[in-house]
């Protein structure tokens, strides 16, 4: 039984198609992140799961029950919002038990839940305060508490960290991860920040233009992006995509960058289809952190490239290299001295490359 299942879901706002035939499943205890740029439909999808938006086509199932037409309050879900949406005229305690009171829960049960959750989140000393008297981090904990207290089947988070400053964001991110590990709840979490997604999620569904681009674990998404959008969206700096084509003859498959004659062997690449590769135009994808300044692995392939720029960011530096008039980036420790305007010997980690069809942008 899947805790959440979404089947062929479509949603339009007027003539704009916001979600197109979405299919999604989550098992219990999973932390699914809906990741994507603004306008990709992730918040709409979350609102549909919550029951705050109507569906045009398709179904939503929670614990195998079709909840597509059920009111939010009867779906056994709880939501934490970007602005926390705490009721300003009520104090923390009233905010947290409001949902329970609406559901006509017994007084004893309410007290019990309140005690449990407020001590767990360390907001028990704040119960009498109003939201305006709380700090950002405290408000978020109260918002989470309001959700926890109802013991829902699924927790929904709508970009809860976007309003915080960078430092607080990292702290709260860690708290959310700890919470999930302790409580083992099922979570659907929306964000546009890929670092957040990678660190928090057990599964990530990357969306663009209302379509799920890839739905996998963070490791697979990082190492085997299914198209150029995903490859470019994940990673900071994102994956280098070098234009060129494949040369295939009887014993060798190689990649030649546009405007270059240099052949990069890609024989050991895990192609889905090994036929029809010759002269295929592709993107050769390699992450900046997989370009080395000295040989680390057996299969690392050496190549000479000219370094044009180096940006120091603390313990690392981002070096801009010229590969046949295409700009690519590499990440090196900042202790390495880079001579600019000169060619240096570099090593491509061929075990961590991705190849994409130039036209369809799909992974080969």
């Amino acid at each position: 039984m899947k805790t959440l299942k979404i089947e062929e879901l479509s949603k339009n706002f007027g003539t704009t198609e916001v979600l197109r035939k979405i299919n999604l499943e989550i098992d219990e205890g999973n932390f699914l992140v809906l990741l994507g740029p603004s306008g990709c439909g992730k918040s709409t999808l979350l609102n549909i799961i919550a029951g705050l938006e109507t569906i045009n086509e398709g179904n939503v199932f929670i614990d195998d029950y079709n909840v597509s037409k059920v009111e939010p309050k009867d779906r056994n879900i709880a939501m934490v919002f970007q602005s926390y949406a705490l009721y300003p005229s009520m104090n923390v305690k009233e905010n947290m038990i409001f949902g329970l009171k609406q559901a006509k829960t017994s007084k004893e049960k309410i007290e019990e839940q309140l005690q449990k959750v407020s001590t767990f989140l360390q907001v028990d000393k704040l119960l009498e305060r109003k939201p305006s008297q709380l700090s950002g981090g405290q408000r978020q904990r109260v918002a989470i508490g309001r959700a926890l207290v109802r013991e829902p089947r699924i927790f929904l988070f709508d970009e809860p960290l976007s309003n915080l400053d960078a430092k607080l964001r990292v702290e709260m991110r860690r708290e959310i991860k700890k919470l999930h590990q302790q409580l083992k709840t099922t979570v659907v979490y929306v964000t546009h920040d890929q670092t957040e997604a990678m660190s928090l999620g057990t599964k990530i569904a990357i969306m663009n233009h209302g379509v799920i681009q890839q739905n996998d674990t963070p490791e697979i998404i990082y190492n085997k992006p299914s198209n150029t959008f995903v490859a470019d969206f994940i990673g900071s700096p994102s994956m280098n995509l070098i234009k060129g084509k494949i040369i295939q003859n009887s014993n060798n498959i190689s990649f030649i960058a546009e405007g270059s004659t240099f052949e990069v062997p890609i024989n050991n690449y895990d192609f889905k289809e090994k036929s029809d590769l010759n002269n295929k135009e592709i993107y050769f994808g390699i992450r900046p952190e997989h370009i080395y300044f000295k040989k680390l692995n057996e299969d690392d392939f050496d190549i000479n490239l000219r370094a044009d720029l180096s940006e120091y960011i603390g313990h690392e530096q981002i070096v801009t290299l010229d590969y046949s008039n295409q700009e690519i980036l590499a990440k090196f420790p900042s202790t390495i001295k880079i001579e600019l305007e000169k060619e240096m010997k570099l090593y491509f980690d061929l075990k961590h490359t991705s190849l994409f069809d130039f036209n369809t942008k799909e992974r080969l």
Partner: protein
Amino acid sequence: MAFFFKSKLNILMFKWLEKNLPKIVMAPAVGLIGWFVYGFVLWTLYISFTNSKILPKYELWGFGQYEKLWASRKWLISVDNLLVFTALFLIFCIVIGIILAIFLDQKIRAEGVLRTIYLYPMALSFIVTGTAWKWILNPTLGIQKMFIDWGFENFTFDWLVNREMAIYTIVIAGVWQSAGFVMALFLAGLRSVEDEIVKAAKIDGAGLFTVYWKILLPMMRPVFFTSFVILVHISIKSYDLIVALTQGGPGISTTMPALFMTQAAFHKSQVGLSAASAMMMFMAVAAVIIPYLYSELRRENAR
């Protein structure tokens, strides 16, 4: 040599002008208000302590006018009417205003048209309003006749000429004029609430009524205060409407402080008494406005 000094003087003058220009530009406004508002109020205050009749006299007479004022039956009726009117005016305007605002907040199809209809009375003068309602409430040809012609033979609606009920006709006309304003304020207030709060309430299981009653309306406290202050202010100043609708009658049963003041000064030649009544009105307004302004400025500074 003279030329040198003259141009130096010009430059100095120019510099002085530049530095003080802002203050100079502000002078007209400050000066006019200082004289015509503060100065005049002080003059009226002074006169209220004299025994002026037709013309102002400047010898002080102590609190004589105030004693006369509060011994005057007409004044007591005015104050009583003001209290009754203000209470009803407030209650009806706010209740109707809130109801209309909440209903209009429900994504109504003809919202724009309805809003225009509820608010247009504010564009009319109190004289126009009074004239229209005077006709509607006409004892023989107005509402009474309408219901009688519809078959309710024993229907009477002669409030306008009834000493006990006339004050309520003023409430009807006044609420008609001002309820839309309260609605506009509350609608703006409701719309300024971010919709995540309503979403959270829906997830928490609150029905529509609960959302408004327990969450949104409590958030509207500032709007309540603003409406209260403005409505009380309008009420204390009521003059035009009374003149047009009842002229303070029948007899003096609907007279109000503003009417009392004008009649005392220009019809009864009791300038000192009139000034005293004007100062009473002034103090009543101040009692409401000053705390309001104080709390508003404190809020603005705290941000």
